[in-house]
């Protein structure tokens, strides 16, 4: 393995990305299911745009943000499964015998998540444009959506890695998926928060960081450059990424010590 931190990260990131791309069972559903949900939502809830106060007359434009966040949940699954597999097969144990730094292992492993996030973001953008979605903030806004989407993928990917390192089990990572799915559904996924009628649901959606991630992406498509929505979205995604990376790093330290 090449010497410096950058070399170590690059080697492990290449391995992680190759491994992700070589697993169609991981790649295809992470692209297909968000697109399927988008198609069903768009056909099923288009009439919601007739509600007074709905921010756009295209439910496709409103719902496209869901695909990016749902894709990030799949990234968590991917990162978690890959990490759990490394624990189960003993790859991590062998790595612990090398002088490799802990940080490079974690960042390198998340390289696969970044690649997956980029593929997902490009696919969802292309699908959205092909279906007629509107991008108020134009090309720079679309690029910012890609950046935010990758950041969300890293945040959830690190959460998957944390679960894998903590438990050493792929099954435990799978168990995390329904929880993250719940976080998506209990957000402002289907309607803007001010149009959610049920009090407790609106409160949950307001406390749920996923709502702000969705709203950040949506703002670039519907309203243009909204500094507050973007700051909240990047703040929530970045904050979550910091927390989950710190948790994964601590779990990795414990795992390496045990090894």
């Amino acid at each position, binding site marked *: 393995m090449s010497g410096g931190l950058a070399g170590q990260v690059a080697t492990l990131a290449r391995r992680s990305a190759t491994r992700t791309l070589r697993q169609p069972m991981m790649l295809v559903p992470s692209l297909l299911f968000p697109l399927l949900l988008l198609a069903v939502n768009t056909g099923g809830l288009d009439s919601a745009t007739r509600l007074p106060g709905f921010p756009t007359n295209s439910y496709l434009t409103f719902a496209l943000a869901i695909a990016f966040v749902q894709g990030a949940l799949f990234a968590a699954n991917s990162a978690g499964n890959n990490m759990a597999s490394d624990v189960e097969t003993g790859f991590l144990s062998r790595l612990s015998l090398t002088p490799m730094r802990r940080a490079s292992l974690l960042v390198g492993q998340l390289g696969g998540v970044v690649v997956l996030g980029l593929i997902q973001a490009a696919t969802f953008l292309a699908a959205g444009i092909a279906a007629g979605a509107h991008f108020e903030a134009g090309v720079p806004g679309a690029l910012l959506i890609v950046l935010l989407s990758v950041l969300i993928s890293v945040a959830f990917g690190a959460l998957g890695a944390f679960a894998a390192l903590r438990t050493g089990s792929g099954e435990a990572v799978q168990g995390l998926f329904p929880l993250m799915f719940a976080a998506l*559904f209990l957000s402002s996924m289907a309607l803007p928060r001010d149009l959610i009628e049920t009090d407790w649901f609106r409160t949950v959606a307001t406390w749920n960081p996923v709502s702000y991630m969705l709203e950040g992406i949506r703002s670039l498509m519907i309203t243009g450059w909204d500094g507050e929505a973007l700051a909240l979205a990047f703040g929530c995604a970045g904050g979550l990424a910091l927390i989950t990376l710190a948790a994964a790093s601590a779990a990795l330290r414990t795992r390496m010590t045990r090894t």
Partner: protein
Amino acid sequence: MRDLLASAGAVWWRNAHNFFTNPAFIVPGTLFPLFFFTAFAGGLSRIEGVPGFGFEPGYTAWIYGFVLMQAAAFGGIFTGFSVARDFESGFSRRLLLASRRRTGIVLGYVLAATTRSAFVLSVVTAAALLTGMELHASAGDLVAMYALAFAVNAASSLFGIGVAMRLRTMQAGPAMQTPAFLALFLAPVWVPFDLLTGWLKSAASINPVTVFLEAERGFISGHPTKEGLAFLITAGLIALFVMWALRGLRSAEAAA
């Protein structure tokens, strides 16, 4: 007949016992429909204000109609998972050897699916009533509503059993789940059929689940709609999937 019932009873008891005593089975099986009910009824209740929605009992009852179908259909599909698990563990091989009337095995799994769905439907119904769902149905409508749900449950369990007996592995999960999931969501889940748009409306127009949902919601509102057609389609599906499951059983026998 006695042999058939003995085999069916043993399989039913084992599966029902496994379901009620193992949290890994009972928790996801119950939480899944409850979660959808909570998320849709809570998050989308404003949809009833869309012009043309017009469902008197309200949005909670509207979503209850969908969750009823979902719980019934997935109760059957999860039973297909149990069959696959029994094949992977080698239990089914011993069961095939021990059973004097193997058709009873299929019947036992269907009865187990009915039992687990009865439990899940009770929990979902209790949750819906506690959250203020209005039911405008008469006693007869209620009986018909649950009869239709159990008939759909029988059809989906026979479908799942047929798939599991042919493939005999847990990896067959997506082959059971995906068609059920697609059929459920390519239907008027959130709004009435007339408010659907685009390709989803075309898909829903030929999807039998659309008829089931309209019938269930008709019972809920006290104005039965398309109920005869719904029962007729379900009877046809049951007949079709009985053959599918029994042929699956023959395939499993040949492989055993």
